[in-house]
């Protein structure tokens, strides 16, 4: 076997397997981090989001942008649905925030005292918003740790200080503990204020953007979910469930939706990488064809001394599989290194699973068999006399 030529040929397999491994690692890493983000949102959590009522013209707008939910809905859920532990309506929007000359743009969540219980938020300093704060529309704020760091400096105590949200002064009464996670949807870069204050002084409207409900336990999730749906349909005077102007989602629903998106993304990425595998396989086939031609005399000799068709075709198949296997092994190392490098240099999480390594080995052996089969057959069928005469 020609070493340089074999090396160059298996490069195609190396690149193919390497990129499949890297792509799957990125996909699964993303899926893992999204899952843990959803899990950390709270336990036995049900979320009600507004949706535009589907009119007869079937114009659908983005979920969550409508203004169909109110505090009354949240109160009705507290009163009317059994097995509900806590209910936290919220109104969230981004605003410009200023404190001591520092400027930041962050998520402002107007909510009630039940929020920390429902959303697994823990208080680090001071206290969270109280029922009294909500009743009296107090201008008080609880900062997320990232926001606190941005506005007042790392690990400082901002209690009693003032932050200016959208031109209105709020007194800081608490800081939450870090939940981890960065970027979009971070639970750390956030400011909580009383819901009533947010509605009156910031939004100037009395809707809420989300109602979060914690069921008593996992067993009651389903009944609570359907109870809320029926209750809100009644309150909103909607006869047909299909026409509902809201969506009631359990954590599981969100998880399912998110994982179907990440799965699709993973498959798509892997499929693109898979194309380079096919190209690599064709390279192997091409080289094996050349090898068979070059080694015609050897094949003739082997046949003359008693090799059967199967012996010859196995010999060449084995060579092809060994090549692709070698390519696969190098590809796995390279792909894993790439995945590791990606999570090292960017914050993107990656996850190299045993599954993807087994898959890569199987696929590379499969490619050896699939693309080595034809050359091996060609070798096996050579007439020993013709082969011996071949110059």
């Amino acid at each position, binding site marked *: 076997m020609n070493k340089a030529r074999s090396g160059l040929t298996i490069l195609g397999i190396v690149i193919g397997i390497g990129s499949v491994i890297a792509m799957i690692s990125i996909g699964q890493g993303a899926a893992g981090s999204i899952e843990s983000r959803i899990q950390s949102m709270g336990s036995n959590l049900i979320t009600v989001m507004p949706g535009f009522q589907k009119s007869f013209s079937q114009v659908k707008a983005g979920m969550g942008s409508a203004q169909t939910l109110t505090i009354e809905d949240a109160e009705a859920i507290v009163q009317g649905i059994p097995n509900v532990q806590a209910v936290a309506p919220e109104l969230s929007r981004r605003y410009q925030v200023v404190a001591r000359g520092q400027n930041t743009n962050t998520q402002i969540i107007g909510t009630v005292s039940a929020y920390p219980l429902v959303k697994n938020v823990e208080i680090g300093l001071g206290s969270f918003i109280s029922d009294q704060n909500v009743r009296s529309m107090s201008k008080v704020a609880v900062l997320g740790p990232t926001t606190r760091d941005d506005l007042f400096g790392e690990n400082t105590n901002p209690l009693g200080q003032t932050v200016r949200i959208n031109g209105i002064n709020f007194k800081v009464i608490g800081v939450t503990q870090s939940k981890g996670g960065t970027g979009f949807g971070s639970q750390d870069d956030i400011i909580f204020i009383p819901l009533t204050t947010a509605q009156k002084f910031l939004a100037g409207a009395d809707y809420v953007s989300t109602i979060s409900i914690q069921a008593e336990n996992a067993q009651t999730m389903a009944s609570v979910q359907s109870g809320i749906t029926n209750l809100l349909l009644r309150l909103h005077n909607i006869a047909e469930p299909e026409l509902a102007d809201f969506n009631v989602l359990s954590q599981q629903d969100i998880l399912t939706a998110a994982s179907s998106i990440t799965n699709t993304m993973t498959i798509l990425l892997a499929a693109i990488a898979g194309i380079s595998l096919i190209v690599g396989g064709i390279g192997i086939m091409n080289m094996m064809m050349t090898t068979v031609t070059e080694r015609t*005399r*050897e094949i*003739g*000799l*082997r*046949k*003359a*001394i*008693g*090799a*059967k*068709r*199967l*012996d010859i075709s196995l010999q060449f198949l084995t060579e092809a599989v060994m090549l692709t296997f070698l390519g696969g092994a190098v590809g796995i190392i390279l792909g894993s290194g790439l995945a590791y490098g990606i999570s090292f240099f960017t914050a993107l999480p990656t996850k190299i699973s045993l599954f993807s390594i087994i898959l890569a080995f199987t696929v590379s052996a499969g490619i050896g068999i699939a693309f080595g089969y034809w050359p091996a057959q060609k070798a096996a069928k050579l007439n*020993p*006399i013709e082969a*011996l005469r071949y110059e």
Partner: protein
Amino acid sequence: MIEAKNISKIYKSGNMETKALKGISFSIKEGEFVAIMGPSGSGKSTLMHILGCLDTPTSGKYFFEGKDVSQLSDDELADIRKNRIGFVFQSFNLLPRATVLRNVVLPLVYAGVSRDKREKQAKTALQNVGLGESHFFHLSNQLSGGQMQRVAIARALVNNPSLILADEPTGNLDTKTGEVVLDTFHKLNSEQKRTVILITHELYVAKHAQRIIRIRDGEIL
């Protein structure tokens, strides 16, 4: 042990037909040393391929050890070759990047002989043709022509074939090494009682055999 009955072989390439053999009949008994002699293009190699079960005749019958092999399939012929026949070619046909020992072991691999037994048999065969231990692990393309041909003979002998076929075995060798190789065949025949068929176009080579079958233009003279 060998009986050819009215064997013909016609090669067709495109619409060209070559009658390489035209009704050849003869028989060879076990333990004989026979030379098949004729000028170049007379059909000697074609005949050897049929006698060696590498090919089947277009018409006629060929009995090998009493069995009609003229209609057998590829793989059935391979079975006969691997157990009963040893070949020696003019151009040696050794695997160039394999060791001497590996070349001689190869037929035993296809015959399914166990690893230990293979090595032992191959070493004996090499010693039988006068190649000692010191040569076993040379690459075969580092040998001289005479040595290569003796490795090829050892390879032909290694699975104790009943018939050894040699097609112009001295064609690529000088006279002196040729004599050594012919001597080896001689010994195989006289000491080990093996049937040897030697194909050549030169009379002085043919004269080493006990009997000469002469062919010309695909016919026995």
